[in-house]
């Protein structure tokens, strides 16, 4: 190999530069935000589905709700134990989870997702 030393040195420097953000941020991972529950949510104990499902797939549920409500006119949801809920993000979900900043936004920021729910739906007023 001609100029082997230079090439290898260049490669080491180049890879080092590419990896530098990883070394720089090593051990400084952003902490997973903790879900803050309002007193009302705590008292209710259970959401419309179990906690694991709501954590991982609440958006699927919301998507299904908006579809069935807007397109099929099915406005009520029956939980496994028989309790009936009015299917509405703005009226039902945000009634318990009225702390949007700590309940929705915090986690969405952490996951770097920007759902457009609030372009139209009105967020509950929060005390700053």
């Amino acid at each position, binding site marked *: 190999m001609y100029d082997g030393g230079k090439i290898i040195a260049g490669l080491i420097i180049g890879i080092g530069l590419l990896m530098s953000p990883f070394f720089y941020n090593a051990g400084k991972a952003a902490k997973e935000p903790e879900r803050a529950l309002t007193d009302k949510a705590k008292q209710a104990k259970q959401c419309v589905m179990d906690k694991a499902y709501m954590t991982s797939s609440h958006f699927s549920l919301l998507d299904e709700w908006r579809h069935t409500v807007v*397109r099929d*006119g099915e*406005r009520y949801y029956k939980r496994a134990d028989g309790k009936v809920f009015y299917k509405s993000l703005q*009226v039902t979900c945000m009634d318990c989870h009225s702390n949007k900043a700590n309940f929705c936004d915090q986690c969405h920021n952490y996951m770097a997702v920007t759902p457009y729910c609030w*372009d*139209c739906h*009105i967020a509950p007023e929060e005390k700053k």
Partner: protein
Amino acid sequence: MGIDRRAFLKIAGLSTMLGLGGKAALDVFAPGEVEASTKGVPLTAGKRWAMGIDVRLLDDKVISEATAACHRHHNVPDLASAKEEIKWIWEEDYEHSFPGHQHEYVGDDIKHAKFLLLCNHCSNPPCCRVCPTKATWQRPDGIVMMDPHRCIGCRFCMAACPFGARSFNWGDPRRVTRIPELIAKNPGFPFNKDYPTRSKGVVEKCTFCVDLLEKGEQPLCVTAANKIKKGSFTFGDLSDAESSIRVLLRKRYSLRRKSELGTNPNVFYLI
């Protein structure tokens, strides 16, 4: 002598081709007719919602209260601009409500009467036919619904609607809380914290208060108007021959806007 096998096959092949070509030609020359004949058939299952508005009982108070009840519930902002105006229900004069009906000898009481216009929830809605995303469609109960989640803002439906019942959001409707001259016109916007606003780039219109109908209530304009003048608005099920609206339509003569266009409007103006 009868025809032989070869001649028979020739004739059969030729007539099949002609038959196919003839059908295709029909479709090409009259697509509207073919579609209309299947779409225009009113569904008999369930209900068919319709509204009757008694023109004789419409006055300024009824008109303003019915409009306010609707626009406040549905968070319809006053944008103080004819170009950007959002309207679900609005006042119009006779000449523009019923073009084609007017002539110079019409009596002053009708000529200068004020009408309340809204989406006609046509039985044969042209807006639904042109929507490329099915963001607007006709429910089995006849209501022409709007799904803003799906609307891409192409405004084909606005071009298709002959009644001007659809409005486009040229900007974020919540700007009325930021622009000083609009704040004064919309105190407390969004008026109803339990109903969404719309976003920039979607079309909106009257929904016959579908959220209330599904709770067993009447549309807001009907309730508000009847509080002031009982019987000014009638809302009911066209598929039930004894419903209030059917009884009224049998008893009184009614007009529909631009019925000659064949969209089959479901808002009746009782003369």
